[in-house]
């Protein structure tokens, strides 16, 4: 059997994702029932959710606004008039035995999602984003099946990528990018644990250089970043081994079992449902009014990947730090507020450093988020400035940060009160250097005789004499001058 790594030299995986994003509306997509995770089974239902005879859907406009935000943020073409369609299949978690979704007239088409792959931005095409309702949940207990329809009718956006992802890492990155974006735009709570983002993956392999796509399988039920990666890796390997042993990939749907770490066939192409799509006669054409579009466009914030690029290009932040800064909109906004308070060229890198090491460290220790930070950006900047101007050393700065974070006192006031200003007065420092050298004749002789490692001893002595307040750069210069090498 050929090694997988060898096979991957000849074959290229091609992956397309379909991600369902639960929209953060208060009520369901087509009725007034509320939405709440973990509510007692079937308590969030009404005649429409239950599919009772005579019930009708009325579309929740709040879901449209959220979907439009996502459409605009992904540069999609927005259909001014789109339609809901019925997709038919029988299953107990689907009370009407059809799902209200969009078929040939989706709300958004031809958008893109920007991913950060290895520090660079990769743009992945989105075929469509459409609105639909979620199904309920079946659980099987012994000989019984229980149906909970609390989730039925919850509004979803289905985001469909083009088959443009070439590895499981990219697929996981796609999920992360979408997760980041929908949280950024407050479209979804995007809590993976609660199934707010659910992913199906279409996976195929083809010989490198081949234009045509190979036969794909659809993997269902991959609902965490890790599962996406594991399930796709597993499927790529399965397909490659199959081809390597002379077999052929069959068009089928496979269900990922995260506990077993493997997939199993769910249904073949022959068993596929004929969904009998047709426009839902209960729902009028969905019109996107110009005024609504205007509001959405006006209120759209700068997007995470745009900030990722700006932080690096304009503010000199490292790619790693830039990536961390955009992992959360509140973090990025804090950073931008800090930049605004200190618009000096090239300070971005320093500010990011203070934020991501000292501030985040303290917040994590306290178990709170950036939004709850007791230290506002302006105060962090006043500290950064004290260090930048040489009033205090970086080391003292960390102490001042700790105290300011804890007490809320202004860093400059703390420095003043504690008298920890850095000593940058040359004459004063020269006197200290002179004193230290005179007091260490043996070390001076040894150092001058070539024992370089003793230089640190002298620095240490100067710091000791000044309670750590000596300007380290000046100290080094003066010591070298005094010691003669």
């Amino acid at each position, binding site marked *: 059997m050929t090694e997988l790594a060898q096979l991957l030299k000849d074959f290229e995986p091609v992956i397309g994702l379909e991600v369902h994003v639960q929209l953060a509306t208060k009520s369901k997509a087509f009725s007034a029932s509320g939405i709440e995770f973990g509510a007692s089974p079937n308590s969030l239902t009404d*005649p429409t959710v*239950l*599919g*009772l*005879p*005579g*019930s*009708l*859907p*009325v*579309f929740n406009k709040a879901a449209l606004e959220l979907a439009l935000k996502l459409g605009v943020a992904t540069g999609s073409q927005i259909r001014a008039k789109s339609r809901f369609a*019925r997709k*038919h299949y*029988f299953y*107990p978690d689907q*009370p*009407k*035995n*059809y799902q209200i979704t969009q078929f040939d007239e989706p709300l958004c088409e031809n958008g893109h999602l920007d991913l950060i792959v290895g520090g660079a931005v990769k743009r992945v095409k989105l075929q469509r984003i459409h609105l639909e309702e979620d199904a309920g949940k079946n659980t099987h207990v012994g000989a019984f099946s229980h*149906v909970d329809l609390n989730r039925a009718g919850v509004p979803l956006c289905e985001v469909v990528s083009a088959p443009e992802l070439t590895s499981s890492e990219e697929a996981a990155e796609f999920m992360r990018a979408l997760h980041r974006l929908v949280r950024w735009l407050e479209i979804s709570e995007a809590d993976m644990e609660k199934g707010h983002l659910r992913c199906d993956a279409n996976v195929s392999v083809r010989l490198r250089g081949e234009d045509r796509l190979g036969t794909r399988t659809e993997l269902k039920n991959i609902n965490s970043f890790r599962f996406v990666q594991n399930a796709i890796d597993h499927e790529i390997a399965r397909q490659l081994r199959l081809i390597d042993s002379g077999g052929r990939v069959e068009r089928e749907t496979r269900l990922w079992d995260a506990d077993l770490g493997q997939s199993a066939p769910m249904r073949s192409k022959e068993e596929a449902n*004929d*969904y*009998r*799509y*047709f426009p839902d*006669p*209960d*729902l*009028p054409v969905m019109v996107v009014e110009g005024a609504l579009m205007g509001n959405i466009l006006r209120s759209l914030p700068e997007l995470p990947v745009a900030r990722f690029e700006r932080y690096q290009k304009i503010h000199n932040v490292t790619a790693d730090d830039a990536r961390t800064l955009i992992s959360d909109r509140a973090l990025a906004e804090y950073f931008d507020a800090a930049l605004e308070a200190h618009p000096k060229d090239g300070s971005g890198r320093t500010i990011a450093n203070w934020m991501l090491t000292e501030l985040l460290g303290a917040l994590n220790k306290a178990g709170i988020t950036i939004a709850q930070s007791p230290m506002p950006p302006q105060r962090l900047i006043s500290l950064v400035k004290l260090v930048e101007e040489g009033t205090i050393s970086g080391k003292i700065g960390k102490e001042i940060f700790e105290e300011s974070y804890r007490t809320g006192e202004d860093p400059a006031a703390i420095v003043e009160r504690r008298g920890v200003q850095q000593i940058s007065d040359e004459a004063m420092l020269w006197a200290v250097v002179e004193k230290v050298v005179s007091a260490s004749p043996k070390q001076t002789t040894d150092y001058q005789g070539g024992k370089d490692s003793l230089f640190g001893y002298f620095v240490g002595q100067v710091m000791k004499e000044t309670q750590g307040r000596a300007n380290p750069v000046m100290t080094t210069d003066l010591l070298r001058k005094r010691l003669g090498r």
Partner: protein
Amino acid sequence: MSGVELWSIADITRRIAAGEVTAAKILTDTIARITERDGELGAYLATDFEGAQTAAALVDAMRSANLPLGPLAGVPIALKDMIVTKGVVTTAGSKILDGWSPPYNATVVERLRAAGAVIVGKVNCDEFGMGSSTENSAYKKTRNPWDATRVPGGSSGGSSAAVAAGLCTASLGTDTGGSIRQPAAFCGVVGLKPTYGRVSRWGIVAFASSLDQVGPIARSVADAALVLQAISGHDPLDSTSLAQPVPQFSESIAAGVTGLKVGLPKEYFAGEIDPEIRAALDNTVAALKEKGAEIIEVSLPHTELALPAYYIVAPAEASSNLARYDGIRYGTRADASDLLDLYCKTRGAGFGPEVKRRIMLGTYALRSGYYDAYYKKAQQIRALIKRDFDAAFETVDVLLTPTTPAPAFAFESKATPLDMYLGDIFTLACNLAGLPGMSVPCGLTKNRLPIGAQLLGKPLDEATLIRTGAVIESALAIGAPP
């Protein structure tokens, strides 16, 4: 017959308001008549006398307290069993919903109650509204009050028979392809299908969503107008309901037809029509002319496409709407070994043959790759039919046609489903175009079977139907069944 059971709505509300009679007394007489007559007639599937007594008592209490009474205060009304009633079994004439007690009320029920109506029970219909004789009810046979050997028409056969026989003052029916107008014609009563969207469909068991509409069946045009008034108007629970003002329909009753342009679509008079019906329509035309209407022949060239288009659209939507009847959440459930078996056995046993036929037709029409050839094509035909009407309404105010090509037929006399379908050729186009339509009695055959004249109006122009219907009614009254 004479007495309470044939009083008009105006009689009832005026006499209650004047203290001449109580709502309780009217209800007691109605219950007595149902008890006495319905064993033979077979109109009611379920009665709610207790609920009715409460409603009547409330009317009487309000009258005693000098509180304002609703426009239908104390009026006994029956509902087609397609209309969802909280706590009162609703079956749509199907075994699959046997015993289903809904947890909510249709909007029309809420509106009738708010108007003071006394809802006495649920009346028979073809299963899920699919049929033209009420023979497709899974429960019972409803007889025509004019001739017990004949059908009352359908699918709102129970609604029409109950009104004609005086087992309620008025009723609601539903009309997807003629199901209010055809049984109204067969039973000699007035049936009005409103403009699509005029009346909320919330709580109406769906047959074909883009065609279904609820409307009144009554013994006079004036009564139909009052009931229509109570149930009309926008409902936020139905996205297809129209946010349009509702005129005072009763004001049209006495408006007369002077100067009104009445169109006779030639295609509706060209085919096979019973000669007695043709003669009755001639009388109707003469009466309207005499009252000052102008009669104009018009053409609706796509009329013959209505039947095939209807039998694509209606079954397609029905196949989708009826998918929910699977025995899982409500209704009857068969014993089964696994999920597929449960679906097959529940639906196999729960649906009758006509419903199964239409589900099969609709499933076929919607299958992948055939949507364009069937459903979409049928929708295009609808647009053509609509355009025909728009063009005709540029020259006329209202159209007059026979409601049916023949009077009520005997039980089990239609050999094939197609024979049955062909009886609806005059009523289908109205639903496909979303227009208001009304059937008004315009004569009797030699065998004393009622004949209906159909009026078709512009969208939202029920008022002109009422105006014209009232003139026909006063000129050609047929009286009550024996």
